[in-house]
């Protein structure tokens, strides 16, 4: 049963009891909460996700609670609990969804060492993955989400989940987070996309989330072969500039922009090396989203699907 098939009240009841358990693909997440208004938000943004049974093993279980005491009445606040610990300060009650999303991301980024986690968006077309590393000011989220509205399947807007054994990219599906101008850009670019409520004045500015559709969610266990890495830079003064990035440099840039490259040591080196070897790497400076998407579509089609890796010499 999908989340959208039960009512807001039904979601609220689950949150207050055993929780809402969601299979995001590479990880299973459970959310519990006594904040009533969170239910409708989750139902909207996780609507296409299946509700997992209560008794499955989770990778991250978070609890969003109303703060106790005076904080219930005067400037009410909420707190995020993760396995008996509170990793963040309290937040105003009017930002329940961002806090839950940050809490889950925080937990996953620290724990999923069974995979190499790049800080990047990932989309795919025809089984070929496009990895879009997140640099400040890159517009990574806007580009990733825009691609997902133009024929690409979204695997993640935040975590490039690389399987250590074969460097395939795995979906880690979460409502895609958009900030500030990006929200308006995507609203115009994809008027039919389901966007959740806007949360102004968060630490990251105004934040809103994009719901994923059923076809994306149903493919949450379908990996993609590495094929393209695009380092984007949104620049309103540049119409379109494209450069090839030497693979050794791409390796370095991906490694420093990773959540756990350092922790995984030799396994990270091998997995990332294989991923880069299999990928065409580009740097793209753009102001026109459509043109960037056309270029990336071309890269994917051009990607050599017959690329194989020689076995290591022993």
């Amino acid at each position, binding site marked *: 049963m999908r989340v959208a098939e039960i009512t807001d009240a039904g979601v609220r009841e689950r949150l207050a009891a055993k929780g809402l358990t969601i299979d995001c693909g590479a990880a299973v997440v459970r959310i519990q909460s006594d904040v009533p208004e969170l239910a409708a938000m989750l139902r909207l943004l996780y609507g296409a996700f299946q509700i997992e049974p209560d008794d499955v093993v989770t990778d991250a279980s978070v609890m969003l609670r109303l703060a106790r005491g005076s904080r219930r009445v005067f400037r009410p606040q909420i707190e995020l609990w993760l396995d008996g610990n509170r990793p963040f300060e309290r937040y105003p009650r009017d930002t329940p969804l961002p806090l839950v999303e940050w809490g889950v991301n925080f937990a996953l980024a620290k724990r999923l060492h069974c995979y190499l986690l790049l800080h990047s968006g990932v989309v795919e077309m025809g089984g070929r993955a496009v990895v879009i590393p997140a640099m400040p000011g890159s517009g990574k989220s806007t580009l990733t989400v825009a691609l997902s509205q133009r024929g690409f399947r979204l695997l993640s807007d935040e975590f490039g989940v690389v399987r250590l054994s074969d460097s395939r990219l795995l979906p880690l599906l979460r409502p895609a987070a958009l900030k500030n101008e990006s929200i308006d850009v995507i609203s115009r670019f994809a008027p039919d996309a389901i966007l959740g409520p806007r949360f102004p004045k968060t630490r990251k500015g105004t934040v809103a989330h994009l719901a994923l559709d059923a076809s994306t969610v149903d493919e949450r266990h379908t990996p993609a072969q590495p094929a393209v890495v695009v380092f984007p830079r949104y620049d309103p003064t540049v119409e379109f500039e494209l450069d090839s990035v030497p693979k050794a440099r791409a390796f370095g840039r991906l490694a420093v922009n990773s959540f756990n490259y350092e922790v995984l040591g030799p396994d990270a080196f091998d997995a990332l090396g294989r991923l880069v070897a299999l990928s065409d790497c580009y740097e793209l400076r753009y102001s026109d989203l459509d043109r960037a998407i056309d270029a990336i579509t071309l890269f994917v089609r051009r990607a050599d699907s017959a690329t194989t890796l020689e076995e290591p*010499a022993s």
Partner: protein
Amino acid sequence: MHWRNSSAGTTIVPVGATFSAIPGVRILDFDSEVVVFNPRSWDAHILNSAAEMVLGLLTHSPRTQHDIEVALFDALAEEERASASAHAERVLNDLRSVGLIVELGQDGLASR
């Protein structure tokens, strides 16, 4: 693009400033540049072609500084050959500073 693993050097070598790559170095060849895994620090390094060549030699067997100079001399363009010695010293120092190679003592064991 291909992979190479180094083998641990165990031969005893004659006197002189002799160097060897540490065991377990992994080398990713990306045509113009290589990325190298340092098993001691877990760091990854990008090497230029000169450093790549020197490291490649030292992963196969220990070599003296003179050997390295000769190899670089052959690889350098004519106008650069005069500085092969300085080049060799620089490359060896760089590789040693990041811990990819060690200098061997008279007993053939790493002195550092």
